């Protein structure tokens, strides 16, 4: 007859014995272990960031045009990797926002494009302030779009760029929903998730993104935040920059000079 003490002892041994083989089944993979540690030991010396100066943007939309051509996003489809928004704040405190065709052809009229609601006229005398805000992927340090991908088709590179593997994406659209900045969309030709990647094919060759080269006013700049001598790094470190939707905790890496609280 087994007494209580012995029963407890044997139960412990059996339970322990069951746990060990489960752990032993896992094949030891040094690469994975290193990755789980956070990979902080071998941080590269490049981390791409972007700087947008809202004071300098005039809403010409050359950036959007160049982006669509450079990145083979169908020109007439109403989707784009980068776009420009117009904000008009009137003296009564109302804010009107529009971005016709993502500002591919710029802002050529005073009327606000309200989509199916039609155009809206704003009396120039009632305008308190007006400005243009270029938007693009924030290449977040905590990219929500990557975290929600069920198949590992979207990921972040060592230098901070979030890419999409077109051959691996199943088109579920979780990332399109997950991005708080509305940056992602479905590519009309490949039918997979599409997004701005700071023109990865250009920046890795020492060039600048197509939108940066196309901007006549210097409103868009790219830099490497791990290089303290980089002009963009210096501005981010020393001037009053802001980011979009900081409260989401995504740690966005597109910094704005002259960002107003009306901007969503």
């Amino acid at each position, binding site marked *: 007859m087994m007494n209580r003490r012995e029963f407890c002892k044997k139960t412990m041994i059996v339970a322990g014995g069951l746990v060990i083989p489960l752990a032993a089944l896992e094949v030891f993979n040094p690469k994975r272990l290193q990755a789980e540690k956070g990979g902080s030991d071998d941080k590269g010396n490049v981390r791409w960031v972007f700087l947008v100066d809202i004071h300098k943007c005039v809403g010409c939309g050359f950036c959007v045009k160049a982006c669509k051509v450079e990145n083979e996003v169908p020109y007439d489809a109403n989707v784009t990797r980068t776009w420009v928004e117009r904000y008009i704040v009137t003296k009564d405190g109302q804010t009107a926002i529009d971005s016709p065709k993502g500002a591919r052809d710029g802002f050529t009229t005073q009327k606000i494009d309200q989509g199916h609601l039609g155009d809206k006229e704003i009396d120039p005398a009632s305008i308190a302030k007006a400005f243009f805000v270029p938007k693009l992927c924030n290449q977040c340090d905590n990219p929500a779009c990557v975290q929600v991908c069920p198949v590992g088709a979207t*990921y972040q590179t060592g230098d901070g760029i979030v890419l999409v593997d077109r051959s691996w994406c199943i088109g579920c659209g979780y990332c399109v929903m997950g991005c708080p900045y509305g940056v992602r969309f479905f590519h009309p030709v490949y039918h997979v998730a599409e997004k701005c990647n700071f023109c990865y094919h250009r920046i890795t060759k020492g060039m600048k993104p197509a939108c940066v080269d196309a901007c006549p006013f210097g409103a868009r700049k790219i830099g490497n935040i791990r290089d303290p001598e980089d002009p963009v790094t210096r501005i981010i470190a020393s001037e009053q920059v802001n980011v979009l939707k900081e409260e989401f905790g995504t740690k966005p890496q597109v910094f704005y000079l002259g960002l107003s609280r009306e901007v969503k």
Partner: protein
Amino acid sequence: MARALVVPEDFGVYERGYMYGWHRKSNEAEWKNVRVKYKTARICAGCHKDKHDELIKSVHAAISCENCHGPNYDHPEDPLGMNIDRSRKLCIRCHSYLPYKGTLRGGIPGIDPEKHYPSAECVLCHIPHDPKAMNQKREVRS
């Protein structure tokens, strides 16, 4: 067994760790190999020095050649992209007047596209490489 067949060999966890780093490593090279279309104004100046020198003295100096002339691709071997956009639509991106006082846009010389010679192309009167407010073509002729 099934995993070995379905999952590519280079699929794994890379620099950004377990949460953000899962991917097929060779996809990075695929993105790096996308064709560069816009080669920047610096490349244009190599052959078209006369046009470049003319432009940099004008108020349009900051505008990249490719913004109006189209992307370079591999010009002159492959002139796929070089289509000069002389349209009104291109000019009014900046020169359609918007009454936003105190902003850069409000300070750009602008017109109302619906009232200022609506059916004419801007280049009939204005020379984009060295623009002035008056009818430049008529000035040259007289």
